């Protein structure tokens, strides 16, 4: 069973629904013999991967769509085995090196080396380079990024890199300057609405514009999410009703509960329970920024203006620290402890006024 988001994914650069001019430029790019390293960046669900796959198809033909999963094993200098899943076709390989955490450097160095050392099967009819797609490049450690820079220079002869990232701020300048940067902005709400409606039409459904607008607003301009919400709505209730409830993801409900608990009681025991719950989120791979932002939003609903500014200030402070480290739980807890102190004082001040 394939999801709408995968089923109706455009397969050709000319068939994408928005950023058409950019798509044309990308098509022109492939028609030259050579091809630069690319850094594709933009928010989640804006269509980066879709464009990358279209681009690869443009380069190598339909052969890139025959994908297979493969597990690769690398050995660290300390003899630890690191395993990582890759998605391959005959012409390209796609990896998310951030999956292996601190061993990402090894994966990057060894992977590029092995790929670069194997030549294309038929040089005459094919491009003379292979493509390596690295996702979540902004999650890479500094070490890995330096390693990436060196290997990029060394093996430029027979492989090209396409890097995907959400933001360039965590990609080192050295890498940025070696790539052609392509920004894929998120679609506007209108674009999302039209895509939702056209998708529903393809599925033989009728989506009222009001509901489409509601879904688009809920999706934070994340097209993939919008399509998933839409499909979930259809499963819940069809024919669609304009006042139909739009489901929240369960982790979001989870964070809402957590925020309620924090506001309800400020104590040491609460900090401990919040910590175990945070671990639950982190272990199951909910991105840390997402947790932080959602939690902050929920907490701010309970603050007055003066307190809000203070809380946001501290949130920014700890979020910044979090970006610099690997152990995010330390900074989460510091923020929550800080919030509890501020909020407790706030409540005490309010009640003592009477």
């Amino acid at each position: 069973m394939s999801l709408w988001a995968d089923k109706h994914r455009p397969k050709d650069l000319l068939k994408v629904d928005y950023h058409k001019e950019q798509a044309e430029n990308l098509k022109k790019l492939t028609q030259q013999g050579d091809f630069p390293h690319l850094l594709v960046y933009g928010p989640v669900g804006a269509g980066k991967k879709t464009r990358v796959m279209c681009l690869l198809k443009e380069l190598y033909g339909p052969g890139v769509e025959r994908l297979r999963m493969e597990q690769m094993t690398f050995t660290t200098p300390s003899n630890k085995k690191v395993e990582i899943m890759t998605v391959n076709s005959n012409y390209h390989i796609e990896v998310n090196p951030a999956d292996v955490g601190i061993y990402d450097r090894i994966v990057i160095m060894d992977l590029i080396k092995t790929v670069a050392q194997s030549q294309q099967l038929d040089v005459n009819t094919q491009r003379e380079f292979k493509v390596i797609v690295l996702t979540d490049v902004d999650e890479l450690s500094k070490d890995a990024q330096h390693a990436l820079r060196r290997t990029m220079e060394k093996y430029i002869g027979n492989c090209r890199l396409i890097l995907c990232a959400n933001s360039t701020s965590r990609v080192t300048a050295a890498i940025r300057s070696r790539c052609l940067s392509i920004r894929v902005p998120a679609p506007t709400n209108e674009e999302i609405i039209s895509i939702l409606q056209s998708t529903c039409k393809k599925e033989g459904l009728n989506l009222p514009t009001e509901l489409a607008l509601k879904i688009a607003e809920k999706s934070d301009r994340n097209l993939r999410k919008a399509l998933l919400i839409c499909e979930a709505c259809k499963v819940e209730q069809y024919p669609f009703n304009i006042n139909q409830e739009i489901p929240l993801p369960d982790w979001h409900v989870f964070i809402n509960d957590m925020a309620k608990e924090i506001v309800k009681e400020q104590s040491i025991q609460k900090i401990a329970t919040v910590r175990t719950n945070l671990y639950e989120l982190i272990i199951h791979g909910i991105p840390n920024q997402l947790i932080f932002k959602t939690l902050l939003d929920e907490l701010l609903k309970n603050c007055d203006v003066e307190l809000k500014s203070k809380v946001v200030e501290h949130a920014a402070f700890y979020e910044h620290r979090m970006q610099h480290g690997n152990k995010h739980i330390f900074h989460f807890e510091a923020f929550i402890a800080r919030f509890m102190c501020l909020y407790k004082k706030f409540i005490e001040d309010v009640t003592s006024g009477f």
Partner: protein
Amino acid sequence: MSGSKRWIAFNFDQKETKDAPKKIKKPVATKSVVAVPNEKLKSFKFFDKIDPKNIEDLAVHAKKIKEVEEWLDANVINPTTKVNVPMLLLTGPTGAGKTTVVKVLCQCKNIDIQEWINPIDKDFETFKGPGQSVRLQEFLTESKFPSLLTKASTKKKVTLIEDFPNTLLKNTNEFEGILDNCLANGKTCLIFICTEVHNNKVDIAKNLFTEEIKDKFNICNINFNSCSVTLLKNALNRAQNIVKENLDILKLPRPKIIEAIIATAMGDIRCAVNQYYFASLKGASEIPLELSKLEKTGQKRKRVDKNSKVKSMNKDEALGLFHGLGKVFNPKRDDNNKVQCDFDALVDEFSTVPNIFNAFLFENYTKYFGDINDIFEAADTLSFSQTFMDKWSERHDTLIIPLWISVLGLMISNKHRVSKWIPINGPKKIDIKSRNNLEMRHLAVGDQSYYNLITKSEKYHKFKYLR
């Protein structure tokens, strides 16, 4: 007084003439550095006298001695078991008296000791001779060279192994092979002596003598504790008596110094005796003592006045993980509510890797705090130090600094300490599973719950808030 602090000059002439001018009949060699101008002094061997000759003199708990004695009786004197080569393993910290117990007991029981000492490898380079471990095996199995010193061949014999060839630590299987061979061809019983060390990599007792090996070869393990204060005192009393008999060469150290020596030796008898000998040497200046700043509270009368320490004797004390955590979580405060602790010394004493220690601190600190405002301060410091931990992860030597920050922050901010027994939890391991499904690889973790909704399945994890 700056005199005692300065390095002692190489020239002893001046001092000798000052302190004991009359004893020197004729300076043997004025240029010689050795401070043994007296012939009588030359022949005096303090350590020969202090070495215990009988069981009563041993500074080891009587029960331990008995254990070893019983083993010797059962396996060497009247072998009751049919094991060809009985083996005994003695473990314990340095200076607990392991070797001495064996030597004294064997002397009393009229047992010969032959000891293995690692040969120097110089032959190996020139002649490509056998390696140390091969030679150890030869030594143990083929008694090629019967000792010339053995008085009667009928005498009972034990083999003492305190020195282990270094290669054995790397390939522990080789050791098993050697023991196998011993069991088949060996003649005398074996006594292994291992010193406890904190570094796991060079811990012979742990690496070579695993539980399997102990079971397989039926090795009896006797663990020695470090020397108790009373036993140390008795030993030094004996030394005191020796000095009293030889007051012409030695002098009696002040009682205060003896107390300090006992306090600093930390159960190491060898260290204590050596230090005592230094203190009793004539001509040497008094051992500098380090008085700790703590003033006597006078609540309890301690057996040893621990406030003074011998300066030159400070050992590198290593705190185990739990001991270290306890020290950080339960800071001592004086009447003015100031934390009493030498932070530098404390952090240096931790034997755990800094980032692991920090993780343990984080996992457990909340339970020791009694006030939410304190928690906030502590959490902030931990978050601060963690940023350094992450940044400097490649440089292990600098990791001590963020750890220092954490420790300091936790100890200072813990103003309302909870004191009760609290179990320590290990740090949580965060192991994020990677997606390994070709079809669903575009599905972000945050969107997985929609997949569950759409397919009405529970393929992905469902979050449930725990209260």
